[in-house]
């Protein structure tokens, strides 16, 4: 049987960072990833990574504490402030580390890491490397895993988490190349599997961000926290919904409606304008569109960066230009970019504490798939990359220490039980007599969430979403037969991930329906105000066969008392 001390699922930034850190403890570390690590969705991150480095001439008196305040305020006071403070205080050193490893950050005139303004931040504190920060960071961290000879199971798909009596013993995985299912035993498992964006149809996420990595721990008994908080990025290009970084606005871009008006002045103060937090900008754009002020009355507005000039665009936003030219045939140097809000990030995820530990012993979670709750109800741009490397590092550290006191028993009954269980499941897929088309179910699910659990939510629509997801789960049980092939069975992969989609969707819809207030990205037209007295608490969704059972847990408040969120 394959076995390792620390097994990391997911080869994105959080997973790679965890692997590098865990390996420092002289333990046997391996990464399992369904795609090669450099293909991970972390690479699509554009704008930058936040840290109070005070490198910009306008950020001289920036401190980690101010970063923590901005983050907490951005989260609409739902973030756990102890975790936020931990993240912002570790931010500078974690970023310097990546600089020492060769991450090619853009530079200021005096040679320091360059920083640009981002939404919801009091100072320009987003460190950037042109508009490909995620790509460069991802490559840099992957390079470090090569240096440290960390074993990577490339194109192995984890299909189950082996948990018995609240202890984690490893995972069940399929090697895609051979289609073989087998257990991988591990003393500690870290999940860093990314978000659940593909639950929505209109999303900026990669096709691989399906939420399957959230669903597995969910089934295994770990609750999912705050899943109703879904971030809609204000600026995704029309049609393909590919992200236009917040950096476009950070560098000075305008949002313009059909009257040629910079409409953000009607929603926030003139000082902030386009650089309000994402939830507010997304709602403003959606309001413009709903009220018929989209360009030509259509479902989009314009992001205009022409006034930045060719030189600045080519230097700081070259990737944006490439995307516009490739996918829209629009050159942003000459024309405004048609954009609309699209699903971008899942603030919620596997409930983890600030050491990335979960309710299951030996099971850790980090990155977007986890909810340590540093983002609360709304994430600030530039904080997600930071979360991945800070909490990836923390998860790696704690898991690396934890395994030293553990003996691995590959004879443990759980391996046999789970192998049998999973084999049974696979056989049912291969021998199914149903006739439901999985891709039809996926399409219906996407349409349902786009329509009913979007930027503006109502009781009626969310009820409909809960009901529809329940029906889709029923249909999933009657899925058509899957053809057995000897290698790389993509059909099986998509069908398995569809279950993850459905389970993530049910927690999103149920959590949203239950939360009778508006907070951050969760905006209800029937309960338009934030209600701290009743709802300043985290939602915890526990798996049951009938659907999620919701519980609630308190928010950690340290320095910053809740106040009205005004920009």
């Amino acid at each position, binding site marked *: 049987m394959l076995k390792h001390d620390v097994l990391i699922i997911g080869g994105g930034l959080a997973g790679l960072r965890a692997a590098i850190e865990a390996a420092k403890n002289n333990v046997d570390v391996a990464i399992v990833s369904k*795609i*090669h690590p*450099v*293909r*991970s*969705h972390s*690479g*699509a991150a554009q704008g930058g990574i936040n840290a109070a*480095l005070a490198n910009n001439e306008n950020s001289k008196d920036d401190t980690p504490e101010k970063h923590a305040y901005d983050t907490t305020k951005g989260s609409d006071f739902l973030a756990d402030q102890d975790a936020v403070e931990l993240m912002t205080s570790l931010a*500078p050193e974690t*970023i*310097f580390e990546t*600089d*020492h*490893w*060769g991450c*090619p*950050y*853009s*530079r*200021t*005139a*005096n*040679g*320091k*890491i360059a920083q640009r303004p981002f939404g919801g931040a009091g100072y320009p504190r987003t460190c950037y490397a042109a508009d*490909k920060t995620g*790509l*460069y960071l991802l*490559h840099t961290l992957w*390079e*470090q895993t*090569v*240096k440290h000879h960390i074993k990577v199971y490339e194109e192995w798909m984890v299909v189950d988490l082996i948990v018995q009596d609240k202890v984690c013993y490893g995972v069940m995985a399929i090697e895609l*190349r051979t289609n073989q299912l087998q257990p991988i035993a591990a003393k500690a498992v870290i999940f860093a599997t990314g978000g659940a964006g593909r639950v929505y149809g209109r999303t900026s996420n*990669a*096709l*691989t961000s399906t939420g399957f990595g959230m669903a597995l721990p969910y089934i295994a008994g770990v609750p999912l926290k705050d899943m109703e908080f879904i971030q809609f990025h204000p600026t995704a290009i029309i*049609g*393909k919904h*590919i*992200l236009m970084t917040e950096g476009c606005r950070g560098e000075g871009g305008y949002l313009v409606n059909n009257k040629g008006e910079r409409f953000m002045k009607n929603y926030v103060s003139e000082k902030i304008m386009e650089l309000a937090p994402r939830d507010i900008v997304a709602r403003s754009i959606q309001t413009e569109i709903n009220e018929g002020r989209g360009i030509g009355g259509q479902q989009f507005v314009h992001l205009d960066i022409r006034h930045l000039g060719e030189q600045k665009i080519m230097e700081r936003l070259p*990737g944006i230009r*490439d*995307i516009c030219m*490739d*996918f829209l045939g629009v050159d942003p140097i000459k024309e405004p970019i048609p954009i609309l809000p699209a699903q971008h990030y899942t603030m919620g995820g596997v409930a983890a504490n600030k050491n990335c530990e979960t309710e299951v012993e030996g099971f850790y979670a980090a990155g977007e798939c986890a909810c340590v709750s540093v983002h609360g109800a709304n994430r600030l741009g530039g904080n997600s990359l930071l979360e991945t490397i800070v909490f990836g590092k923390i998860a790696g550290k704690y898991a690396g220490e934890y395994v030293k006191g553990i003996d691995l028993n590959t004879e443990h009954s759980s391996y046999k039980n789970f192998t049998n269980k999973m084999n049974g499941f696979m056989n049912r897929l291969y021998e199914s007599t149903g006739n439901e088309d999985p*891709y039809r179910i996926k399409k219906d699910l996407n349409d349902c969430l786009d329509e009913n659990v979007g930027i503006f939510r109502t009781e009626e629509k969310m009820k409909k979403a809960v009901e529809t997801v329940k029906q889709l789960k029923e249909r999933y049980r009657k899925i058509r037969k*899957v*053809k057995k*092939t*000897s*290698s*790389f*069975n*993509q*059909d099986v992969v*998509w069908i398995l991930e569809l279950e993850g989609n459905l389970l993530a969707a049910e927690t999103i819809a149920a959590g949203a329906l239950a939360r009778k207030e508006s907070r951050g990205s969760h905006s209800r037209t029937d309960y338009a105000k934030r209600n701290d007295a009743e709802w300043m608490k985290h939602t915890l969704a526990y798996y049951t066969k009938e659907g999620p059972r919701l519980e609630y847990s308190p928010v950690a408040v340290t320095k910053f008392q809740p106040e009205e969120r005004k920009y």
Partner: protein
Amino acid sequence: MTTFNVFRYDPAIDKCPKMETFDVKNERGMTVLEGLFYILENLDPTLCFRSSCRAAICGSCAMHINGQYRLACRTQIEHLKSDTVTVRPIAHSEIIKDLVVDMTNFFANLEKIKPYIINEGPFPEREFLQSEGERKGLDHLIDCILCGCCYGACPSAGTDEDYLGPHALMKTLRFINDPRDKGGKERLAFVSSENGVFRCHTVFNCQEVCPKDLDPSSAIARLKMKAVWNTLKNLVS
């Protein structure tokens, strides 16, 4: 309707590869990758291809489309100006199934050049100071997404699997140009070998096909120049 000619091969069953034809309902703005998904979802669920970001940044979906290596996600069907779309896998790598190839050799070659900063410290307390000019020296070299188009299009890679390949050589220059890296001499010596820059026959296919419009040919040329100067310098001294 657009006709897709897709390369099909399952080494476990088929004796030799074949091209299979599918009719794809073509919507405006549809990309080749979306066309392949249309086939997978509606016509043949056994079709295999890689995909992830669908935004031309992850490098998963490199394949040979209508006469050139391209990223399927970045290629719109109407831009091909043809009623048929012919799709083949990347060359110079073993085919696992259909359009999915084994990229082990591609990455093994990259790992040979020690693709990480060689610098054991001591490190400054904060970031390294690096002038804007020094940082400019890395421009474009760092933009490679490791999709494998250049490697598939390179005839030198086709005749010698030990040839490092355009991707690995460009990465080498990226590290040599980085003032934070201390392995310059070692790196130059390594690529000045038979399987390094001098296996390059200057065909320019890598530059021609690069979906990110990078110029590995230029990177290799600059390495060649450095290698030659270095040898001359050693001869003189």
